[in-house]
């Protein structure tokens, strides 16, 4: 997994609550058996006016020029600013893959849906939770200042604005370490295979009906 240290990016404001993973990456793109190739179809049904499918390139599509991702000032976005319950709905990890492949390194919102939040940490996308008021302020700043950029320093749990001010954020210490070091979850668990085997022996006796093997 890609490690996350200090990242800067243009902030893209997505001013909607309950953005679900069906919107982040619509189902027709889930037919792929790969982990890559989703970036061009991030927010597909908002970004384009026609219905896309795997293999159809963006320049064959009808662009929705009103959608925030298509506005010239938000090109090359690196930080997504969103509202409550971002990433709700389907468990598809493709949503995280699509956001990252598009170029987002972090998503800032007042709250996230559980499975999406979890999936972020498996891939190196940083979900940052801030209070509603802070989020409101950021939305206002983004609207005011074209090219509004944030620098996120995960080691310091700090978001820096270009005017020299900053916002601090909370993050679980273990999750932070995992991102900083780019640790793979399976590798971490793999170190405990003996414990799992020991557990299994006792469990097999205790709940014998579950083991036909």
């Amino acid at each position, binding site marked *: 997994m890609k490690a996350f240290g200090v990242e800067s990016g243009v902030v893209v404001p997505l001013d909607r609550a309950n953005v679900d993973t069906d919107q982040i990456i619509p*189902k027709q793109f889930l037919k792929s*058996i790969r982990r890559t190739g989703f970036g061009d179809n991030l927010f597909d049904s908002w970004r384009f006016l026609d219905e896309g499918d795997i293999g159809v390139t963006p320049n064959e599509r009808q662009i929705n020029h009103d959608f925030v991702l298509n506005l010239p000032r938000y090109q090359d976005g690196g930080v997504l600013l969103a509202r409550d*319950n971002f990433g709700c*709905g389907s*468990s598809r990890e493709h949503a995280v893959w699509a956001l990252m492949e598009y170029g987002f390194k972090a998503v800032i919102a007042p*709250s996230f*849906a559980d499975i999406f939040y979890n999936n972020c940490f*498996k891939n190196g996308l940083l979900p940052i939770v801030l209070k509603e008021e802070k989020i409101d302020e950021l939305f206002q700043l983004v609207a005011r200042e074209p090219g509004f950029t944030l620098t996120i320093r995960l080691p310091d749990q700090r978001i820096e604005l270009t005017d020299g001010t900053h916002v601090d954020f909370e993050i679980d210490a273990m999750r932070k370490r995992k991102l900083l070091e780019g640790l793979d979850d399976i590798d*971490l668990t793999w170190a405990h295979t003996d414990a799992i085997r020991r557990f*299994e022996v006792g469990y097999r006796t205790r709940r014998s009906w579950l083991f036909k093997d």
Partner: protein
Amino acid sequence: MLDWEPGLATLYDKIWDDHLVGRRSDGVCLLYIDAHLLHEVTSPQAFEGLRLAGRSVWRVAANLATPDHNVPTENRAAGIGGISDPVAREQVVTLDANCKQHGITQFDIHDIRQGIVHVVGPEQGATLPGMTVVCGDSHTSTHGAFGALAQGIGTSEVEHVLATQCLAQSKARNMAVRVDGALPDGVYAKDLVLAMIGMTGTAGATGHTIEYTGAAIRALTMEGRMTVCNMSIEAGARAGLIAVDDITLEFVHGRPFAPVGAAWNAAETYWRTLESDADAQFDKEIVLQAERLVPHVTWGTSPEMVVGVDGCAPDPADAANEIQADSVARALHYMGLSANQPVTDIVLDRIFIGSCTNARIEDLRVAASIVAGKRVAKSVKQALVVPGSGLVKAQAEREGLADIFLQAGFEWRDPGCSMCLAMNPDKLLPGEHCASTSNRNFEGRQGHGGRTHLVSPAMAAAASIAGHFVDVREWI
């Protein structure tokens, strides 16, 4: 490592504790997984990861697979060759190959036991009380109906479970949803759970495991309980569960994967203990009165945007704040509805009876009883019944339900997810309104530009005849 006091444990606490392998060096808990269900969409990258890391499947017998999202619901005799979309076909072929390579049991596209993974697991007795169940699909919460801890996971976690038989996670908080009283006639489990989501909102249970309790829950059949637990995720909970009782055990007994003889007796003794202690501590509790519930219909683009059938679409002017007013206005616009429009005025283009929420035999019986001897309205372009599994389909045909649907003008299809998420050819066209027994009314969920209204099978059936929503209580 108990984090609850003896005598104060919830059902979730107990199942969690029974599966706790320990804490990893980074403090995250390892939870042992009993059953892992797989389908074609979220597993290929996990198997690929396993291959790249040179790992094998930890406990092959704990896995059960079936293709469901992509499979066509017509011309099943053609098998995989009948999947017209080559990309979708490759995914189903890949699941086949992965299962063969690792020796995982799969009910493939030709197997009568094939179906929606959340219908198939319980039907086979692969989901048992007290188990931890995972699947790369958010509606895994369905299996909580059996007093199991069942959670949807992402693809990285699918690989993690394949490789280690464990899930690495932190414990959620406990939430109780108590439903007192008895459901009135014409009001079903689906209405109950939609009403709950209307109350909590789609993030109301985030970070919690819900336990459903109360007389109205105890009175539900296993099908009804599965419908309720299925939609826990729509309230933000990763899992929802219901304590074990006679109804649970009766359903499980005799199923192909269920224990028999002495093993059954041992299991039953344990299963009978699977309920929360009388004084169990919940972090959050909500209470609903079943008698007051009415049939529900979603008007918007999120399951929390729901009203009683006697209600109207909201007016953005009445919203609590600007953000909410904006989201109501946006949803009304997408749905092609006006503020204060009565629900019964919504005219329907298509009807979909199916999905892991409502495609079990009981759902089909209820819907069939309403359409029997009637005809689907001329204005309805298509009315589909998609049974949840091949076995549900066969049973419905034996009971004569298929004939009732066909005579009423419904199409009778082969099992799969179908129009619930429209990954196969069954989809809405832009602007079309659909009465759907599925679980998500997100923008484009049932097809680009499609407009979904979530309802119970009875409500969908009545709407198919009337051509618009009607109060099904007046029909029974």
